[in-house]
């Protein structure tokens, strides 16, 4: 097994890192302090990201992306993940892969404007009453005169305020299964401005300042049948086949931030003197550094292995769950210890550590909580023995 990076991968890392350090870092503090990412700043950085071919690079070549293999894509995600989330997610957007599931006309209408940086997508599954148990959703759509009529509420929907449209998952029926009735789910494109569709300001969130979440309300919102993404009643099937790797994306962005925090901690430990010597010479500090590096490497290897398997077509849900679980938990640990090593300074917003620490919190919740990842891993173990 080859653990080295190819020449292209090395260059992808270098270019993306240089962009992140030069074009995103300088704006971080302003976004963190104000909680706002102004549109003119988005446009300015977006133009540079498009020129550098970094914008929407997750996409295949035929639609204007970079056509990266999974590992290369995740290396790019890792570098972007170093920066403030709102900045990298908005200004160097990676449109959701699920947009590739659209038919030719839907790709033209929804995917292409996202790739060109004209708008953003958002994805709405979660509801106040349905989080981990998405199938329990209450929001529904009924067929009526060739259209669909949508009703219900979604919440925690990321960057729905910026997005030009939403991909919304709605219950469209129920089927009987041996384990009881099961809801059938369908995915719809809903354009902003469609009557009966309202986007309300969401909650203020401890993580990822400047990156908003919204509440989406559907009140007899009528959309034509051509707005169905994939097949009717097959919404989760579409999601599963196109969104599988988003957990690896979460893992990678966490690795980037953890690496940044570790580098700051190492530099500080080598420089800061107390009791007449570098604090890195005290085992109380140096062993922390060793554990941080060790855990980070373990998380990175899990992620890389899952990426490699993804391209081999042999990845399992459990592999991706392990990578997501480990990387998000390691980030929390590394961020916390990096602050500890910095003493009081670690808490101050002159350094990016306090926010890396805050930002780490959401990563163990979204894209499947840590408990749900453990559930996936253990289910795979038990199923193998008929459990």
């Amino acid at each position, binding site marked *: 097994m080859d653990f080295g990076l190819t020449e292209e991968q090395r260059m992808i890392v270098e270019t993306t890192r240089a962009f992140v350090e030069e074009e995103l870092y300088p704006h971080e503090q302003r976004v963190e302090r104000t909680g706002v990412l102004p549109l003119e700043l988005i446009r300015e950085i977006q133009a540079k990201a498009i*020129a*550098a071919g970094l914008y929407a690079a997750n996409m295949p070549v035929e639609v204007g992306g970079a056509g990266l293999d999974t590992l290369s894509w995740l290396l790019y995600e890792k570098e972007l993940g170093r920066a403030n989330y709102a900045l990298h997610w908005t200004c160097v957007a990676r449109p959701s892969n699920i947009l590739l599931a659209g038919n030719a006309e839907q790709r033209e209408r929804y995917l292409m404007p996202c790739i060109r940086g004209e708008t953003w997508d958002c994805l709405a599954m979660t509801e106040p009453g349905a989080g981990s148990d998405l199938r329990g959703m209450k929001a529904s759509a009924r067929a009526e005169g060739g259209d669909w009529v949508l009703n219900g509420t979604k919440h925690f929907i990321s960057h729905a305020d910026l997005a030009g449209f939403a991909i919304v998952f709605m219950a469209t029926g129920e089927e009987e299964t041996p384990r009881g009735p099961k809801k059938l789910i369908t995915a719809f494109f809903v354009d902003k401005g469609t009557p009966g569709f309202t986007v309300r300001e969401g909650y203020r969130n401890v993580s990822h300042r400047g990156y908003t979440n919204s509440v989406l309300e559907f009140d007899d919102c009528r959309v034509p049948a051509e707005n169905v993404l994939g097949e009717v009643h097959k919404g989760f099937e579409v999601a599963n086949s196109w969104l599988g790797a988003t957990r690896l994306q979460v893992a990678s962005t966490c690795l980037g931030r953890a690496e940044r925090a570790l580098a700051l901690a190492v530099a500080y430990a080598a420089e800061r003197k107390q009791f007449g010597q570098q604090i890195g010479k005290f085992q109380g500090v140096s062993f922390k550094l060793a554990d941080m590096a060790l855990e980070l490497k373990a998380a990175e290897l899990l992620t890389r292995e899952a990426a490699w398997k993804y391209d081999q077509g042999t990845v399992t849900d459990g592999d991706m769950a392990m990578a997501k679980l480990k990387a998000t938990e390691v980030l929390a640990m590394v961020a916390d210890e990096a602050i500890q090593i910095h003493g009081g300074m670690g808490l101050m917003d002159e350094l990016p550590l306090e926010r890396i620490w805050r930002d780490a919190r959401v990563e163990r919740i979204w894209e499947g909580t840590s408990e749900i990842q453990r559930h996936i891993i253990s289910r795979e173990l038990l199923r193998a023995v008929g459990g």
Partner: protein
Amino acid sequence: MKVLVPVKRVIDYNVKVRVKADGSGVDLANVKMSMNPFDEIAVEEAIRLKEKGVATEVVVVSIGVKQAQETLRNALAMGADRAILIEATDNVHVDIEPLAVAKLLAAVVKEEAPGVVLCGKQAIDNDMNATGQMLAALLGWSQATFASEIAIEGDKARVTREVDGGLQTISVKLPSIITVDLRLNEPRYASLPNIMKAKAKPLATKTPADYGVDISPRLSVVKTVEPAGRKAGVKVGSVDELIRKLKDEAGVI
């Protein structure tokens, strides 16, 4: 018109340089290496000339260890068309001297017949600032050094040079050797699509023997030492004391 750009693999400008224990040079084992920043500016300028329709092809050449291939791929990913690697040593600590590099480049120039050679004004590792000038002398071509602006006008190049105390604009007849300075341009990021395309671009590997050039060293490094650390500052008690110290101790007023 073809543009030839020599690029050198050097210790990355962000790396904290360490002198080897025996003083024979700088420790280059396991340190990050990158394209010489001035060469990056030269590559950028060559690509801009191509985008303006002035240049038809950008050829990059590197002389050194086989790892310089990475440097060449970076130049290809920025937008150069083709690369030549002259493997002159397999020891990362061996620096090929400017005269040997200039002789090899002269041989490449004879084969490639470029209209312009764009060099970095110097490499940031040894700061020799000699290769471009030597190359011009060996070829008997015109030279314009420290360029901060370049305009190709027919069979001439108008070059603005950064000289002590100001700017000087000269006109040189082509073909010419132009060495570039910091303020000429801001090199672009290698774009991701171009990075992916770079692998398919041709990279020829040669040796000094292919060009019949003797690269044996003529210089010897006697000793390499770290620059003296800066002495800690002193606090002065009053303006009068400051003035006295500036006058008597520093001798600046």
